[in-house]
């Protein structure tokens, strides 16, 4: 926490909310983004992440609450008076101006006369030195994206806001630009607040990720922490894939919790269960697909003792190079996913084979069973 009065670079939102008529886009929200961090707001479309970003930029007036930049209340400042710049979704480059004039726009508006050196330096930083005289429509998507970044960064904002800046690029370019943006952020040391619906992008780039859903922040933390210890089914499903199994609490044994699911007895660390652990209560037991190992039923005896195990049958398998992904039906749950690294492939593991799934109990987490089990699962129709 940075409660002490430093030079005041933190972005602080207190009680900020936005409603349109009867629809609440963002519920009252408290959020502090420390200076110099790379912060990601992650969520599906319509979760309120872009609205939050636009309230920081000043493009949207909050219904309630206050936006602080450092110690300064900027809630009533129009966007052109805030030391904050935005990289817009699909870039919003000015079509009637060439690249260098686009980049110089902010400087000129603040009455700075000699902009050439700064513009050249900035274009050099984003590796577009040779394109200064081109019009935006003559550039590729990736180049346009870099112009948009340069146009914002040249103003040395206290905070750079990025609204799905890579959404329009193809996969390969996106990966490349992720590293590029990360490099620029490290180089200039400005706070970046990055809005995205791509969980991989958020995890690759950000120090801190806030997962938003339905206008609220569901969970906030470092990427690895969010991935390993999701506290809601939405986070468990939206960040990567989780196998969630309905289970009943049997007892507490020391640090561990013992539960049953479909006849199988499973253990998990009590500290990793965010649900009430009263015995007889229902919880959801979660485990990531890559933590699970598969053994053919005939080899069951060779599984080390103390591991969680669930019997099942392979329904489907797909080979994707580095790993093979299996879909398994078991008494504990239908359609469980298992990712096996392709090190030594067991040729008996084909659809129809009877298998045993086993994993280290420490890799298990527990969630409140009162939530929808499939919250945050990407559905075909809204995969964008």
């Amino acid at each position, binding site marked *: *926490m940075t409660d002490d009065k430093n030079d005041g670079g933190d972005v602080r939102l*207190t*009680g*900020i*909310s936005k*409603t349109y008529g009867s629809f*609440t886009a963002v*519920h*009252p*929200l*408290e*959020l*502090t*983004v*420390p200076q110099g*961090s790379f*912060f990601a707001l992650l969520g599906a479309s319509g979760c309120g992440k872009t609205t939050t970003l636009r309230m920081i930029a000043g493009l949207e*007036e*909050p*219904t*309630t*609450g206050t936006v602080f930049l450092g110690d300064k209340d900027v*809630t009533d400042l129009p966007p052109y008076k805030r030391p904050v710049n935005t990289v817009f979704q699909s870039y919003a480059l000015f079509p009637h101006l060439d690249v260098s004039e686009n980049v110089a726009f902010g400087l000129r508006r603040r009455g700075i006369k000699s902009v050439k050196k700064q513009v050249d330096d900035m274009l050099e930083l984003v590796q577009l030195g040779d394109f200064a005289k081109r019009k935006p429509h003559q550039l590729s998507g990736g180049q346009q994206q870099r112009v948009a970044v340069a146009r914002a960064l040249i103003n040395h904002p206290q905070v750079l806001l990025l609204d799905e800046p890579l959404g329009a690029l193809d996969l390969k370019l996106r990966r490349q630009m992720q590293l590029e943006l990360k490099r620029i952020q490290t180089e200039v040391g400005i706070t970046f607040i990055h809005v995205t619906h791509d969980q991989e992008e958020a995890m690759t780039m950000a120090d*801190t990720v*806030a997962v938003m859903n339905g206008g*609220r*922040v569901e969970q*906030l933390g470092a990427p690895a922490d969010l991935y390993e210890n999701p506290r809601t089914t939405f986070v468990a499903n939206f960040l990567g894939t989780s196998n969630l199994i309905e289970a009943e609490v049997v007892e507490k044994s020391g640090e561990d919790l013992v539960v049953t699911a479909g006849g199988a007895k499973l253990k998990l660390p009590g500290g990793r269960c965010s649900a009430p652990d009263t015995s007889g209560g229902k919880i959801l037991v979660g485990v990531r697909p890559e933590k699970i190992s598969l053994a053919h039923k005939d080899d069951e005896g060779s599984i080390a003792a103390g591991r969680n195990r669930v019997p099942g049958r392979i329904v489907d398998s797909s080979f994707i190079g580095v790993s093979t992904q299996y879909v398994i039906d078991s008494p504990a749950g239908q359609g469980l996913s298992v990712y096996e690294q392709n090190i030594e492939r067991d040729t008996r593991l084909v659809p129809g084979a009877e298998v045993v799934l086993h994993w280290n109990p420490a890799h298990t987490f527990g969630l409140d069973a009162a939530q929808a089990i499939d919250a945050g699962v990407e559905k075909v129709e809204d995969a964008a």
Partner: protein
Amino acid sequence: MSALTEAPPAADLPVRKASVRKRLVPYWLLVPGLLWLVVFFALPMVYQASTSVQTGSLEKGFQVTWHFQTYWDAFKEYYPQFVRSLLYAGTATLLCLLLGYPLAYLIAFKAGRWRNVILVLVIAPFFTSFLIRTLAWKTILADGGPVVHALNSLHVLDVTSWLGFTEGDRVLATPMAVVCGLTYNFLPFMILPLYTSLERIDPRLHEAAGDLYATPATTFRKVTFPLSMPGVVSGTLLTFIPASGDYVNAELLGSTDQKMVGNVIQSQFLRVLDYPTAAALSFILMAIVLVMVTVYIRRAGTEDLV
């Protein structure tokens, strides 16, 4: 580390209101122009409505007497002109569509690098006063001129005279001359909207239709034409509406037998000075056009023309 807590419910927090000045911006933008239209377009309609139910004379002045009889009298006396107006305007609109569609299609799909040249040639005549250009038709269709001579030797005029479109060896001062003038005058208003809607059609749709076993004729009927409907609708409206109230072509190219309702309104208003009759005629024309346009737009199914 970042901190996160849910704030107390929204009800406890002061709600910010957009400033009054900001909310008034759209009205400041709208008011001057709309006021202009209200005062100089809508208000005159009210005055005209009141004039149409007045009686009196120019010397003694006119009074509102709710004399609706004027409407019936005006319509009874001038219904041939009404019928003629609608007939001529309708024929001219149809001709504009038949003549304009191939040209719009040509510009949109076949012209290549000539596209802009042809567009300029379609628009450029506008810059010569339409009255001058209409007078040129007097020369073109003159008795004994090359056009009449050619039509005569091909025996076209025999057929058109028999149909009542022309009279004897003349084209000038016949219905054909007036319709020809109307068609000519409003043709660009048909071509431009047609071109705009055709140009938006992805040429790959033609290939797709061909790929899916459509002959060129079927492709046109099932793909191109339906997609150009917005252009057809606005083109026909932009042609029919002004043509129905026009009196220039009838005056310059026709004779007293081709007078349209516009001629009557003009002479009642500016020469006879019988304001109630003129106002009533003008209202009847407006009502007819508005009803036809509304029905047409409904049936064509495009309502967003503005």
